[in-house]
């Protein structure tokens, strides 16, 4: 088990390196850099641009270095927790992003919890009572959840939240807590606002999870040992919980890996619509204005979160499922 753990941990390293290179290439790819658009903006406003000043800026930001040096500088900074320098805000990225990264983690975790809590009972019900009215109802609901773009759902829900529950539109907390230090009241305010984004972000994932878990459980329920158990007079509840449910629980854990990117993708667009203080809106701005270190660090952070999620799910799976633990690391 320990060997497997270390092995998985080591595999993460090259993956992360390759990802960081890919991200660096992507954020470098647009023609020109931030300084060029900055200069043209200044010129369009009729201001004179001092070439010495530009040269100075270029040197301080390291834009005159060859590409691989720029990459090494950036990646080295990442390792030390230094996310680089945001051109647009003229601040270190760490200060610009502030709470956003941690709030993104909070919202993502809450969404995963939501997906689990909601999809588990529904999936079990749908599988046990296959083709009942309830099953059809939830299946239908699941399809709608898959097909509705989340930003639209966010808009509609925002409207209803304001109209019927009187929660301030947008944001993750009441305005007065926005810049306040962390306190119990702020925490409560966040909790009361959290449910809308969590609902919106978690819905497509929930729909997918219900489908997978239901299919898995149905496969398991049709197996012979279940019939044998029933024939021998095992109580239905015990029969369900003891074996088929346990066996079909794997996707619950295994899906953290694929669920997390899905949730983060969802959170980007939802946070733009609802103007949440998450990474989404800032990423969008940074991409538009070629603020490359800000954008790159956000992308890297999201990718890291996902890789970490896959790692955790693999470890948990190995812990939970002896078939995987003893099967020498073959996860799927």
């Amino acid at each position, binding site marked *: 088990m320990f060997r497997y753990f270390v092995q998985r941990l080591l595999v993460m390293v090259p993956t992360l390196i*390759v*990802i960081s290179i890919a991200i660096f290439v992507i954020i470098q790819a647009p023609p020109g850099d931030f300084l060029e658009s900055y200069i043209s903006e200044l010129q369009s406003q009729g201001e004179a641009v001092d070439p010495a000043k530009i040269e100075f800026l270029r040197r301080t930001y390291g834009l005159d270095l060859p590409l691989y040096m720029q990459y090494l500088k950036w990646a080295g900074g990442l390792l030390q927790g230094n996310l680089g320098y945001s051109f647009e805000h003229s601040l270190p990225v760490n200060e610009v992003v502030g709470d956003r990264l941690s709030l993104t983690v909070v919202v993502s975790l809450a969404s995963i919890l939501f997906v689990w809590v909601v999809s588990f009972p529904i999936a079990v019900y749908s599988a046990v009572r296959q083709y009942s009215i309830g099953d059809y109802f939830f299946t239908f609901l699941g399809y709608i959840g898959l*097909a509705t773009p989340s930003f639209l759902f966010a*808009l509609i829900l*925002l409207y209803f939240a304001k109209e019927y529950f009187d929660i301030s539109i947008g944001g993750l907390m009441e305005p007065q807590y926005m810049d306040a230090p962390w306190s119990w009241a702020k925490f409560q305010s966040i909790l009361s606002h959290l449910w809308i984004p969590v609902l919106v972000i978690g819905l497509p994932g929930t729909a997918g999870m219900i489908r997978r878990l239901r299919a898995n459980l149905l496969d398991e329920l049709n197996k012979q040992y279940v019939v044998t158990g029933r024939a021998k007079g095992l109580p239905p509840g015990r029969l369900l919980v003891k074996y088929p449910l346990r066996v079909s629980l794997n996707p619950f854990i295994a899906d953290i890996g694929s669920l997390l990117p*899905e949730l983060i993708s969802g959170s980007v667009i939802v946070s733009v619509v609802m103007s949440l203080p998450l990474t989404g809106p800032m990423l969008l701005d940074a991409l538009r204005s070629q603020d490359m270190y800000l954008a790159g660090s956000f992308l890297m952070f999201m990718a890291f979160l996902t890789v970490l999620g896959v790692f955790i799910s693999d470890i948990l799976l190995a812990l939970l499922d002896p078939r995987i633990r003893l099967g020498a690391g073959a996860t799927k």
Partner: protein
Amino acid sequence: MNERTSSDGASAPLPHYVSPAPFDPYSVERTTPEQEKIYLASQWKLMALKFKRHRVAVVSAIVLALMYLAVLGVEFLSPYHQDTRNVQHIYVPPQPVHLFHKGEFIGPFVYALDYKLDMSNLKRTFTENPEKPLKIRFFCRGDRYNWWGVVPGDLHLVCPPEGGPMFLLGSDRLGRDMLSRVLYGMRISLTIGIMGVAVSIVLGIALGGLAGYYGGWVDDIVQRVIEVIRSIPHLPLWLALAAILPVTWSPLWIYFGITIILGLIDWTGLARAVRSRLLSLREEDFCVAAQLMGASPRRIIFRHLMPSFMSHLIASATLAIPNMILGETALSFLGLGIRPPITSWGVLLNEAQNINVVVLYPWLMLPIVPVIIVVLAFNFMGDGLRDAADPYR
């Protein structure tokens, strides 16, 4: 059998009997023509038969077929051109179509609109004038257009009535007809899914095929690449890639750029499916036989292996299309996808971005209805195809 029971007494010798009729080995199991049809059907025929039993999937397939057919004649179907502006009629709510005027049947018509500016909140209000019915015209001359940008014409299926506008789905902030814009947007949104999937199928088959057929280090590399791509969340990656497309490109080039971006990220699922099928198939006897007879890897992959997983591939591709359509919608909604003047459903929804629209002009969110219908239809059809392609169900 009959002979034995009819002859009485156990001691009497059995009479020897030979039937003069010629022996028919199939006399016990006579196959009916229906059974024969199934037994002798090709794999594709079987799939079609199975697919037909899946009623929702068939309905979805028909809906999609109709929509793609409509894509061919968007200019003809829509009452206006997508850019026709009706300056007098901004933010008109959807007009209902009536059949009876004062209890008298006069065919489909809309009432003329009375315009009033509410001076207290500067909101435009349009009310129907029940005295002035305007008959809708069919097969008529209207806005000029270039069919697919090439063939000029002005024939429309439906035209606005003479003497007034017709906005069956309302009009937007520039007074453009939403119905026409939704129809024009359909062309972009529906084709972008197909083109994106085409890109990802090519990539998926090529890379998944290589990985699955050769195994070893080729497989390792492809697997790592897939892993890396999958571990970056899709939407932010799409956004970052879409931000690379130069602003100076024409909207048409942006369109192609977006399809390629969508396909570049999405091929991983298909590649995995291809790889796992190939890995199991290449161990089969027929594959070894082909190898022994000196067939080249290309011939083996395309001639011997491909037919056996093509059906699966089609099903997976069908299920990938809705993701692309939703992806394009999201990108355009955020302003990094298709750009006006090209219209897609995402571009239309970009206008419905803020809460004011939801409250004041809810009909601007109507493009969401076709998005949901198309995505659902593709999902149902894909599910049906997948079930049909699976021989064990």
